């Protein structure tokens, strides 16, 4: 876990190092005036940009460890301040989209599996394929048109309030749910085929108990991993949806930073993404252990 994060810092810093234009150029040119080579050199020395790569890297790493990610080229504000503005919005949006996905897809996936190859299953299958193949911006525009313009139930854009949260969450959840329903269905079907299900039926165990306390519990194991990965992706911000709904989240911030070549902000964003993925995977592994006693056992024995 720690080595992964170190690797990310190295690549992250290395990419910045080899990319054209450095901090001296950016900050001076951002002021608008053309500057002479001497001035540029002086500024580079001042910022320590003429020192060797390794020295610069460790300097950067030291600052990173203190939470100092440098300053935005565009605004001159600390990167951390820029990130922490968008972060809560992204967490809120990701959380509500994920919650929505889980609440919808687990019951539907279970239903599709139990009613395998019936009309219900086929309708859900068709729905999933539609949801998967519809690009999120199309769905977003349709939702805005219907709920914003026609029904006038929800704001067309923005507002970080609860009402502004609904449409972007639904848009994000739609695509995720479509995939999740298929995965839950497959996992439940696999569990239903296992011997212990036949064993339980042979003892006349109520189908309800078999389904909820046995099959669903076991089928959730692979789903937990999937939830982890999806949640990580959502926490990285979802540029398209955030931009369409004017949601001030990380994705939008990152796109703006990239188009302005605001490298420190991009760097900060990349570090955030890496940290999130590592953390989410850790949480997924831990919950996997809690759900599966055999993993617990194997670890204790080792």
């Amino acid at each position, binding site marked *: 876990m720690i080595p992964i994060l170190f690797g990310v810092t190295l690549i992250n810093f290395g990419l910045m190092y080899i990319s054209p234009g450095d901090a001296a150029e950016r900050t001076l040119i951002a002021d608008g005036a053309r500057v002479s080579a001497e001035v540029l050199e002086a500024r580079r020395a001042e910022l320590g940009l003429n020192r060797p790569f390794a020295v610069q890297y460790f300097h950067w790493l030291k600052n990173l460890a203190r939470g100092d990610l440098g300053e935005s080229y565009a605004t001159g504000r600390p990167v951390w301040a820029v990130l922490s503005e968008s972060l809560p919005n992204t967490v809120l949006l990701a959380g509500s989209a994920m919650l929505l996905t889980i609440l919808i897809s687990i019951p539907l996936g279970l239903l599709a599996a139990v009613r395998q190859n019936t009309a219900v299953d086929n309708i859900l299958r068709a729905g999933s394929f539609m949801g998967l193949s519809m690009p999120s911006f199309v769905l977003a525009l349709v939702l805005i048109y219907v709920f914003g313009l026609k029904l006038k139930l929800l704001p067309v854009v923005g507002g970080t309030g609860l009402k502004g949260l609904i449409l972007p969450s639904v848009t994000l959840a739609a695509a995720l749910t479509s995939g999740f329903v298929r995965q839950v269905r497959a996992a439940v079907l696999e569990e239903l085929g296992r*011997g*212990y299900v*036949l*064993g*339980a*039926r*042979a*003892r*006349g*165990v*109520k*189908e309800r*108990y078999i389904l909820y*306390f*046995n099959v669903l*519990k*076991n089928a959730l194991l692979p789903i937990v991993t999937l939830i982890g990965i999806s949640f990580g992706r959502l926490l990285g911000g979802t540029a398209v949806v955030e931009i369409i709904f004017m949601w001030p989240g990380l994705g939008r911030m990152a796109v703006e930073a990239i188009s302005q070549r605001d490298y420190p902000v991009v760097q900060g964003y990349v570090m955030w993404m890496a940290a999130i993925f590592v953390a989410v995977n850790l949480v997924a592994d831990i919950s996997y252990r809690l*759900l*599966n*006693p*055999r993993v617990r*056992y194997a670890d204790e024995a080792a």
Partner: protein
Amino acid sequence: MSELLRIDSLRVNYGRAEVLKGLSLELRPGRIFGLVGESGCGKTTLLRAVMGLLESGGRISGGRVLFEGRDLSTVSAEEMRRLRGSRMSLMFQNPGESFNPTRTIGRQFLETMRSHGSFSANEAMENISGMLQCLDLKEPERILKSYPYELSGGMLQRAALALAMILKPDLLLADEPTSALDAIVQAQAVKEMMKLRDEFGTAIVVISHSMGVVARMADQVGVMYAGRLVEYGDTGAVLSKPLHPYTRALMAAVPRLDGRWPSATDGAPPPPEHNVRGCGFAGRCQLCAAECLDRSQVLEPVEAGHLVACLRAGC
């Protein structure tokens, strides 16, 4: 109507393949019936048909299963569920089939009991401990707190037997209950099943590949071949004086301690989708005569309590 279980020319189809081709047997309360025959002859299908748990695609295409005189095909799905576990029970060769690996054994006992009535935790605990002790399983509390992978195979199989018997059913169907066990544990399991029969009057149908197990346990033996019973009778009569060439081949295939090599019979049973005219064993039979190929054989009594389906029985 003294039979507990009566099977009347039962036919089971998987698609076009006829796996059981008209099989009849009857079992009285407290009796043990041993079922032998090589893999794929329909033994497991028979047990699953009785339980109403045929795999998807399988259906009863003829005949009847009567449990205490009731035709099970007329029983609703919910009523069938209530019969399973409380009146008739099925146990498997592999205890992995009985237990969900991610839940404790105790929970699975509790779940089974609560599917058939309301039990307080204490009441259930008493029943379960009683049953485990009856099977000489020490430390019932530890077993109940364990996950299936924490117990040895033999322990787990005995726990599975206790689980199948927890509601004291009148009929236990045991599908190779001892095949996965070593000889010592096997002997123990046989003893325990017989003890349960003596204590609760449970009738047992036991499938086994071990002639020894059948000889020890069963009151009656049925030899199955290609979806039919080819020999049927009291255990002593059938095993000491086998009349059907297939039964003899099975007995000859049992390894012996006197140094003689067991003799194998070449070939395999006809696949169930083939509709064989005449005797299904004819192609592998050394006694096969011309008439065996075009007349199908039915079980006929040779002497009291001993039936054989063979034109050349005892030759």
